[in-house]
């Protein structure tokens, strides 16, 4: 995905929901931010590599 099309806090948020559901426990917002950055990196860098 092109970085310009990323809306921080909306793009890829579904992946965070799945991640949290899988963990089964509430998580700290700082931990979640790190995971969210990983999700966004995956989305954006996948296209950059292509």
């Amino acid at each position, binding site marked *: 995905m*092109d*970085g*310009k099309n*990323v*809306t*921080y*806090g*909306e793009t890829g*948020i*579904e992946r*965070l*929901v799945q991640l*949290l*559901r899988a963990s*089964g*426990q*509430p*998580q*700290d*917002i*700082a931990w*979640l*931010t*790190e995971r*969210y*950055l*990983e999700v*966004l*990196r995956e989305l*954006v*860098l996948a*296209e*950059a590599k292509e």
Partner: protein
Amino acid sequence: MSESTAFLGNPEQRALAEQVYKVMTAQGRFFASDAPIRQTLANLADFFAVQQKADRSDVERNIEAALRENAELFAREERDQDVVYVTSRVGVYKPRQEDTIHMFKWRLHDPEHPLPVDDISVVVTTTRPALTTVEPVFISDYWQQQAGILPMPSDVLEDEPPFVVTDDMLIGGEPSQPAPVFVEPALVVAPTPVAASAERVPADTVITLPNGLQIDLRRSVEELMAQYGTTLTNQLRSSIERAVTPRLVIFGTQVFPEISGGGFGKNDLRRIRDYLLEANEPLLDTQIVQDIFRLSPNRPDYESFRFELNHRLSREKDFEFVGVEGARLWSTKGMPPIGTKRLKASEMGQIMGYIEEGFDDSLLAQSADSIRKGGSINHILSFFEWEYGVLPFTRAMAALFPQTLLADQRTTILRFEVPQHYTSALVELRYPTGNRGGWLQGLDAFFRDYLVPGALITITRTEQQHVFTITYEEQSESTERLLVVDEKKNKLIFENVNYYCTVDSDILLTQAQYGRLRNLKLFPMGERRKADLMLEHVFETISDPVGTRAEPRYRTTEGKLLVALNVLRPTSNEYLLHLLKDSDLYASDPELAGSWLYTPPPTTETDDDEEEELYDEDDDE
């Protein structure tokens, strides 16, 4: 695929390849002509082994060899140890390439002959929408380039061939003249250096946060968190909180997916409320979960249930969160107030406002770091603090006490344990808001029972976030005539008091040192927030007259003023100095360091009479 297509390989292989092709095209009979038709080698082998009544492994080998010979027609893919062949009804499969360059949307965004743009605001309206929703505005690259926001792409300038009208593009047979060659002059200009240096690849990995911050995702998560951790976290938090259809919910610092449909009903909330009222004091969420819902902490859904409880209660008007991180306490309407009823929160907030105005000198004696590391703070009680059981929420106190967990949290309930007497007290910590100061209240019984104004107290943090200990240094019994409030007459008097704590003798309000304090008027709290008026009254009451009757003047020391003013209202030394220096009525005494002179404003006869009434008739010292 035309009938004339020749399959390659030996005759058996050609025949087999043709059969496979027929089977696959039959499978995709209703597919689009260029749609891919896929089949696995295993399926093909199973099918032909039955058809040919031959050994399956031989058939599989034959099919593989035949299709290898016709590799152009049958594209081979390997997926999860399966071999898949792909073809289409028109022969070799080619992914469809859609030509979208002439689509209307592109024409709209990138017009062939655009009008000149002086300002990007011509393109994007600045009119405020009826609903203030924050939505990203898409601006085409073309317009951004025109406005100078983005650099001109070099590839367009260099690589795009000039538009040439060819014969077959003309309608109506052969042209009568040689075909015209049309070249746009603007497109053949040399690229500017800016365009040449602009690279598109890095821009694809840069994302823009709602606050405008741009971050490059090629950097590692650790690096990004180290540099922008707070911003990234805050932006994610606000995005989650602002979401129109929330998928995640936040309580404090924790996040969990929104649970729709489940949760707590009115009956559950009523039970919680009744339980809190019965306990008569705020309770922890863990107590509520355990005592009301009988949920064991060992259950796998315990934490999610607890989170949901906290989140639900935070949305209910009847409940108020009064806890901290690590101790989530809940209070409800109808619970008894903590601390004295003689103080109104609005008046106290204004009286303590000097702290928020920057006149807080509490960190002179102890630094915030030492308080945080040591986990304790020393404080000398003033008369006001002792009388009303309050403590100012200074920066020194803020270094010791926990911060709010929720953004709209106003108070926290703490428990102060008194190990010397095996008692404890609930203390309400009111956080500062805007220009109103914060304070702690609820210590009136402890102060009155065991301490006197001038006593040194030590407050120490414990392992539990909401529990503190309060101690003082004990000494043998002493008796002094100390200042107290006669509540029946609502005036200050001196009476014999026995006490057992170490005190600062300069601050101890004895009759010998501060006898004139009994002439102080106990103004209502609404009046006491006017610090300048209180200072005038205090100065006149406790100081030595040095002027004449016609031109009265008073002199006293800074130290005495501070102690006396703290009888009526909390004041820091810095604030006192500010009040003294800010008014023309006061002047520092050049003859005596640390002393101040006060010249009252001229008053009428009526004022004088009223003033006399303030003084105690028995004042015969």
